[in-house]
């Protein structure tokens, strides 16, 4: 073990109470950053869940669509125009929209309808725990997620209700398809969706396009734009980015999470800086002695940086432990906190950077020590 490390370790642990306070500060700070970042990641994923699960090569969306939940509509007849473009194999209409679900006491609760045909090539539910996609072809059949049973007043498969005063029967149940808006998703086929949402038969939200394997996407987009007015043709990535941009930054939700994470990092930096500063202050005589006996500045910086790194490693390890528990506790909630390996590595690096930045106040303090002080103390 290097002497600089040993000195740093013992300086840090000499005042255990202060060290515990520091570690608690770092843990709170990092947990806050983890929660904010985890929520951000989770939110980022959830706002594109439907786009991620739609097997589209291209999307035709109404001009100016900001996100998947956008209420703008297309003309169903545009499907014929889309299919007339060479290379387009299929154009599956999808209808989305908010409507009212009748709960057992006669009241209603809002739901978000996703209606799609396409026998697997459209936008359908996934993670079935009961029932199947085929069951949705029955009249009035809908699929809901089991997370929303209580909210929707459903006890299991076969239960019936009314959506916008039209009969609906739960024929399939999924797991883990939750909405970040907290409004439950209700999957059905296109015709009942139009009834439930209350749009005419000629109106749909999107066309989900499948193209032939050797198709030229650029040419197809150009031809679709030329033949159909008031639409945009987007790749899944473009649609995802647009949805993310709207929900994360257009609404300010992402900015709020980002600012929360930033505040966490700042608080952590200040806490570590305060500790390293006071620890260095307590050991000024020793640092003065080091300078007096000819130690280089680099040697002294090593001692302080080791203290910073030790604080970072210990603080992050404990914070990661707390975060794992939080991740597990939120796994089944509407907005689970996501912790990916990349985020973990990134946050560890952030903690290290935070602690190293904190060390500057101590380093500046040490640089000002007069080595002759060793004679006068």
């Amino acid at each position, binding site marked *: 073990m290097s002497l600089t490390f040993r*000195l740093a370790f013992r300086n840090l642990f000499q005042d255990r109470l202060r060290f515990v306070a520091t570690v608690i500060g770092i843990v709170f700070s990092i947990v806050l950053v983890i929660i904010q970042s985890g929520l951000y990641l989770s939110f980022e994923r959830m706002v594109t869940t439907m786009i991620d699960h739609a097997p589209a090569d291209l999307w035709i969306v109404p001009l100016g669509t900001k996100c998947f939940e956008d209420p703008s509509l297309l003309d169903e007849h545009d499907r014929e125009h889309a299919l007339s473009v060479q290379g387009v194999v299929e154009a599956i209409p999808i209808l989305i929209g908010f409507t009212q679900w009748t709960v057992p006491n006669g009241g209603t609760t809002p739901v978000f309808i996703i209606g799609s045909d396409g026998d697997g090539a459209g936008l359908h539910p996934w993670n079935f725990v009961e029932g199947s996609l085929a069951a949705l072809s029955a009249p009035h059949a809908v699929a809901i997620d089991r997370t929303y049973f209580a909210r929707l007043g459903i006890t299991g498969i076969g239960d019936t209700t009314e959506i916008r005063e039209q009969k609906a029967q739960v024929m399939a149940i999924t797991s883990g398809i939750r909405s970040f808006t907290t409004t439950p998703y209700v999957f059905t086929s296109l015709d009942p969706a139009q009834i439930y949402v209350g749009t005419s038969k000629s109106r749909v939200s999107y066309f989900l396009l499948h193209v032939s394997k050797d198709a030229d996407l650029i040419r197809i987009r150009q031809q679709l734009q030329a033949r159909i007015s008031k639409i945009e043709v987007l790749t899944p990535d473009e649609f995802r980015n647009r949805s993310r941009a709207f929900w994360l930054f257009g609404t300010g939700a992402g900015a709020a999470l980002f600012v929360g994470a930033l505040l966490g990092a700042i608080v952590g930096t200040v806490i570590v800086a305060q500790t390293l500063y006071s620890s260095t202050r307590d050991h000024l*005589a020793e640092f003065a002695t080091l*300078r007096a006996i000819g130690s280089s500045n680099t040697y002294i910086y090593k001692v302080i940086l080791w203290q910073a790194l030790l604080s970072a490693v210990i603080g992050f390890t404990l914070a990661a432990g707390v975060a794992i528990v939080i991740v597990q506790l939120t796994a089944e909630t509407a907005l689970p906190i996501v912790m990916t390996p990349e985020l973990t590595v990134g946050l560890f690096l952030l903690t290290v950077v935070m602690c190293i930045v904190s060390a500057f106040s101590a380093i500046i303090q040490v640089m000002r020590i007069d080595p002759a002080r060793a004679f006068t103390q």
Partner: protein
Amino acid sequence: MTEPVIQAVDIVKVLGKGASQIQALRGVSLTLACGELILLMGPSGSGKTTLLSVLGCMLTPDSGTVRVHGQSTTDARPKDLAKLRRDHIGFVFQSYHLFPTLTALDNVRLALDIRGAPAKSAIAKAQDVLATVGLPHKMNAFPGELSGGEQQRVAIARAIVGGATAILADEPTGALDSENGHAIMTILADIAKDPSRGVLVVTHDPRIVPFADRIIHMEDGRSYAALAS
């Protein structure tokens, strides 16, 4: 003739600014030769500690020259002064200035570690020097577990372990009883017998006068005639 360990010529040093300015050294000259032990005596405020700081390359003089092992400190950068201290000067402080969180062995080893010495040889050398100062059985003791005399021995071991040729001691017996003070001075006098080393001791303690080869008296920033012991 052997080169002096430290040679200071006509040193002037002003401390403070404005109304609080003090001329701490007014043309002091001093030579510390190899194999000698000098006592620097004088009342408080006479400039002893300032002179020790200048000789120890912690302060640079406003005028005059200091040579350590033949190297001038004039216009030297702080990092060059640090290197001079590291390579040639060993310090012994009145209040020991040991690291309370390190063992005696590590305290001594520290002086080698800052020189970049490999850990294994540094440990072996630190053990040898601690044995030399009479503490072979206290290597793993922390300063808080040692008596004042023992702590000062560790400080002396730290000062000499790196091969410093000039040992500058500031009141090394100031915090010790007469028995321990005598023991410490015996060790410093033994070090001064090494023909490659010189020892300069700042002191108020008349009990240690018999250990001196020369005594320099200071008053009002000036040095006065050396007295032979």
